[in-house]
């Protein structure tokens, strides 16, 4: 499955990259094609392009924050998850999201 996502936390220093890396690692381990954008204190890192957004089957937003550029994902299946759980159990998060999308 092609997965894209964005992580963001209030200070944008630690959780943002930690969650992004954890999800990327877990996603690859599960055989998905995954790219995580970080919206931290430095602005957008590893930004998801329009093309990548269009091709994605699933969008994971690991944050309870305001995310910029959500219009990229218009019409996509977008799932919000708590950022902490993404760090603790990235594989479980991805499995759950993929399941939820496949069921629809």
């Amino acid at each position, binding site marked *: 499955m092609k997965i894209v996502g964005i992580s963001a*936390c*209030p*200070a*944008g*220093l*630690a*959780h943002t990259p*930690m969650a992004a890396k954890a999800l990327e690692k877990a996603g690859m381990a599960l055989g998905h094609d995954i790219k995580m954008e970080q919206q931290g*204190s430095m602005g957008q890192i590893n930004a998801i392009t329009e093309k990548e957004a269009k091709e994605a089957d699933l969008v994971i*937003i690991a*944050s*309870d*924050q*305001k995310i910029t550029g*959500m*219009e990229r*994902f*218009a*019409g*996509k*299946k*977008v*799932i*919000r*998850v*708590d950022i*902490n*759980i993404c*760090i*603790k*159990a990235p594989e*479980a*998060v991805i*499995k*759950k*999201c993929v399941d*939820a999308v496949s069921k629809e």
Partner: protein
Amino acid sequence: MKQFLKEAKGHLMTGIGYMLPLIIGASLVVAIPKIIALCMGISSLDPYADGTGFLHILKMIENVGWTGIGLINTVLAGFIAYSIADKPAIGAGFIGGALASSTQAGFLGAVIAAFIAGYTVKWGKEHIHLPESMRNVMPLVILPFLATGSVAIIMGAILADPLAAINGALVNWLRDMSTSGTSQLVMAILLGAMIASDMGGPINKSAWMAGNVLLAEGVFQANVFINCAICIPPLAYAIATVMRKKRFSAAFRETGKGNWVMGFIGITEGAIPFTLVKPQILIPVNMFGGAVGTAICCLLGAKGDIPPVGGIYGFVSITNGWAYLVGILAGALVIAVLSTALVDFNQDTSTVVQDVNVDEIEISFEDIS
């Protein structure tokens, strides 16, 4: 209701996220002229507000920092409103925040004003339907007018006095608590333990948010303890990896190097990989270390007279900064000694299976229109 509260918390956090760089920049601009003056043997720059010379220039620079600190409510409210309803809400949010400062309605007023501004715009977007030809005036004229009008009526006319009274009472109570001896110590211990408990999780963040609320109110003492506690866990594991090398795997010794930086700039999350090895033992150890550190910091008399800056270098913004440093070091040593005595870090966390129940993970679909 639960969904609304969760959403509201996200908006509040977004606002705080935008407010932080403002506070940090402004506090440092206040702190540095003060320190230069202290080095010259002058404890307050206030007498130099008028006149000429180097000290006058220092005072003028300090004032610029205070201008920034005066914008805290404004920026907070503006970006909460932005988080709720994007561009058309920002202006009304700024106005509401500035109003909260000038009417003494404070943080509470700023947040309420921001929610009024944001949700008015959100409501307008969903419920006001104009003919095609008029649609362009919605975001530019109608929504900002509605939002600012609501803020003016509710905040300016109706709630100004009662909010100022509530806020005033609240701030006085908190200020008393953070200045009197015993209750200050209790506060220090509580905040220290909370910050070091789940490192960036909900407990840590609620203590941190409480500190930010107080900061917006001009009560700076709580943040001295919070900033102190934040540095402790990452610094502790950095020290531990050097102090008792044999207790750590090569991977952990490598991670420990990064923790010097995390401890220095104040990111508790640095301690997470270490804590995960045996959380049932290490979380209490971390909490204990955090509490010891903040208690020492409090007892030695570290005071927040200007908004404290986080991280170890934050001592420059604290009166009796040495007490702050001693507190951090003491807390870190406590954790370093206890953790290495109780736990062997020769295993890798990536192999540690985490028991998170898949059913407990909450996910929610979001509609993008």
